[in-house]
């Protein structure tokens, strides 16, 4: 009789083994994970999903008071609150993607140790569910944008390139996912990284142009601090698209795109390498 096997399990040798067909088969799982993340996050809280809105709003208010009113950082022609809200909304998406995915293996050790499904579903679901949160937070931004332009008649406008915004978000997702996968793979062996991530991400915010515009860095001659940080470019570009404020360089665009893709690919390679054996090392 002809021997036709459905699948064969052998020691893993391939460098990149992203089985897209398999990932597609498990698409329902992806959506259920997303649903789980969204539904369960604020269960048994009083304010519930309102927390999605409170976080960026309060942070923006504090940042505006501290950095713009006290430290007197200039934000060009646009209201500091909007400036900060835009930066924080964008930054939050990256931050949430990175911190949540970097915990993938450790947090799901139990279920990964018991049953097989394409592991990449897990970080992907995190990026998608955060995208929805990001969408909600973006609505707040839009609400304030309208409020500012109609009632306070601030002279703000979006860039004519606003249609490129989804591409920017996509590349930010890639970056967060890639970096998160690299870190989550290494966390299986080095728990130290968990601590590094939690405070490193706070430091990273200050050199990612969230509160201080690029122009100020250039003015003080410390441009090198933000030159090699793709997140800096992303936030600056996002602000340019949303508020038509800030400068964009060709180098920045190419640098961001290339580094996002490279980090994402690196993430997949390392993640793949880890997923077959991590249960033995964690």
């Amino acid at each position: 009789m002809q021997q036709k096997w459905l699948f064969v399990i052998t020691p893993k040798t391939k460098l990149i083994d992203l089985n897209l067909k398999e990932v597609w088969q498990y698409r329902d799982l992806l959506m259920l994970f997303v649903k789980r993340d969204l539904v369960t996050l604020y269960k048994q809280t009083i304010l519930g999903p309102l927390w999605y809105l409170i976080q960026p709003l309060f942070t923006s208010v504090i940042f505006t008071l501290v950095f713009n009113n006290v430290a007197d950082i200039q934000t060009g022609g646009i209201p500091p609150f909007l400036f900060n809200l835009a930066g924080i909304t964008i930054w939050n998406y990256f931050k949430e993607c990175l911190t949540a995915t970097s915990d993938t293996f450790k947090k799901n050790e139990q279920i990964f140790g018991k049953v097989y499904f394409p592991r990449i579903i897990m970080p992907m679901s995190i990026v998608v569910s955060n995208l929805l949160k990001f969408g909600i937070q973006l609505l707040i931004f839009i609400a304030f944008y309208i409020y500012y332009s109609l009632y306070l008649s601030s002279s703000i406008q979006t860039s004519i390139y606003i249609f490129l915004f989804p591409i920017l978000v996509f590349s930010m997702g890639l970056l967060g996912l890639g970096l998160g996968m690299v870190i989550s793979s290494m966390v299986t062996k080095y728990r130290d990284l968990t601590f590094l991530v939690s405070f490193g991400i706070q430091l990273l915010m200050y050199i990612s142009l969230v509160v201080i515009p690029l122009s100020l860095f250039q003015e003080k001659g410390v441009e090198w601090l933000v030159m090699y940080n793709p997140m800096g470019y992303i936030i600056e570009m996002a602000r340019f698209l949303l508020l038509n404020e800030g400068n964009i360089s060709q180098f920045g665009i190419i640098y961001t795109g290339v580094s996002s893709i490279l980090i994402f690919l690196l993430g997949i390679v390392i993640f793949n390498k880890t997923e077959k054996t991590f249960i033995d090392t964690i």
Partner: protein
Amino acid sequence: MMEDDVILKVENLSKQYRLGLVGTGTISHDLNRFLARIRGKEDPYLKIGESNDRSTKGTSEYVWALKDINFEVKRGEVLGIIGKNGAGKSTLLKILSKVTGPSTGAIKSKGRIASLLEVGTGFHPEMTGKENIFLNGAILGMTKKEIASKLDEIIEFSGCERYVDTPVKRYSSGMKVRLAFAVAAFLEPDILVVDEVLAVGDAEFQKKAIGKMQDISSQGGRTVLFVSHDMVAVQSLCSRLIVLENGGISFDGSVVEGVDYYMYSSLESDVNQSETYFEITKNRQVSYIKLKNSSSIASTNFFMGNSIHFQIGIKNNKESKDVRLALLIYSSKGEKIAVVGSMESSKNIFNVKNNDFSFNLEIMKLNLMPGRYFITTLLAFDSKIIEKKEECISFIIIEKDVYGTGKIPKGNYIVFFNSKWDLKT
């Protein structure tokens, strides 16, 4: 044709774990190791492992959790996998369910493999039972559509209708298992892997679950791999048995023989104990006792309800018209269970010449519950007791599915009886 169809083939499967290298999981250790390598020195952490190894005369820092495992499973077969802790059962299941990869060898499968999750893994405590059915089903590889079409059956089988809209965190552990099993049972994988989860459910559910697994294999023609320490469940469910020992397959064959083999090895009784030779101190005495099972093989382990065969050698130097022998059976707590005496239970009167002889005695049905039992012998010549050997040999009774129900009574009982039940109304 389909009956003999091999659905799963495991070829030379090995899994190696490295001692000393993995498990020193901090960056500082790895940095030290890296620095040592640059300076051309030995790995500073490996030494610990090596010195430990010296006592065992091995220089390798490797451990084989599984070594050269080979077996085939046919469609519709229920394969039991038993073995002591650390024998490699879990590692084998992990490789089968693709959780971890093998070091060498291959597993070839013609069907989808799904494993029954441990209690509550994959359940989110904040979500309701129904939501968790979808989530768990999807984790096991079902699509949303498949689950939706079986949702009612799953809920009904789990017996949790009232609670499907309650968050799972309010469930008892038994209810979680019910729900998890229900999802897996209706998953309809070609190969279902069940790893000792039934122990949590109550008696009613265990019966239901075992019944469902039997249905899956006999009617659905699907294959079940069943890992358990419950010998009664293994015997009532499995059609074939594999015993794992130290990472290798030490037995592959029928269930009855397999359980016997496993109990035998796990009780650490060696063959010598089935034959006891006594120091000769008198002219007339019991000189040896040998135990054999129903297939005439020397053994100290006997299944409930099976026969036991004694051969008792007696040293003798006098002629006698009436030799009597009695075996007194004691429980491990020292309670008198029974006496089997030649005077009462045999119509024959045994007479002997002035040389050594032996008695052959068979007890046809040992209606004893599992446990260890001790034998005391009483030897009499011409109505006079000349020797009593206290607890001179012991044997062990092994669990067996004597009623064909998959269950035996629990609670330190000593004997059991075959019985017939009938209901008249």
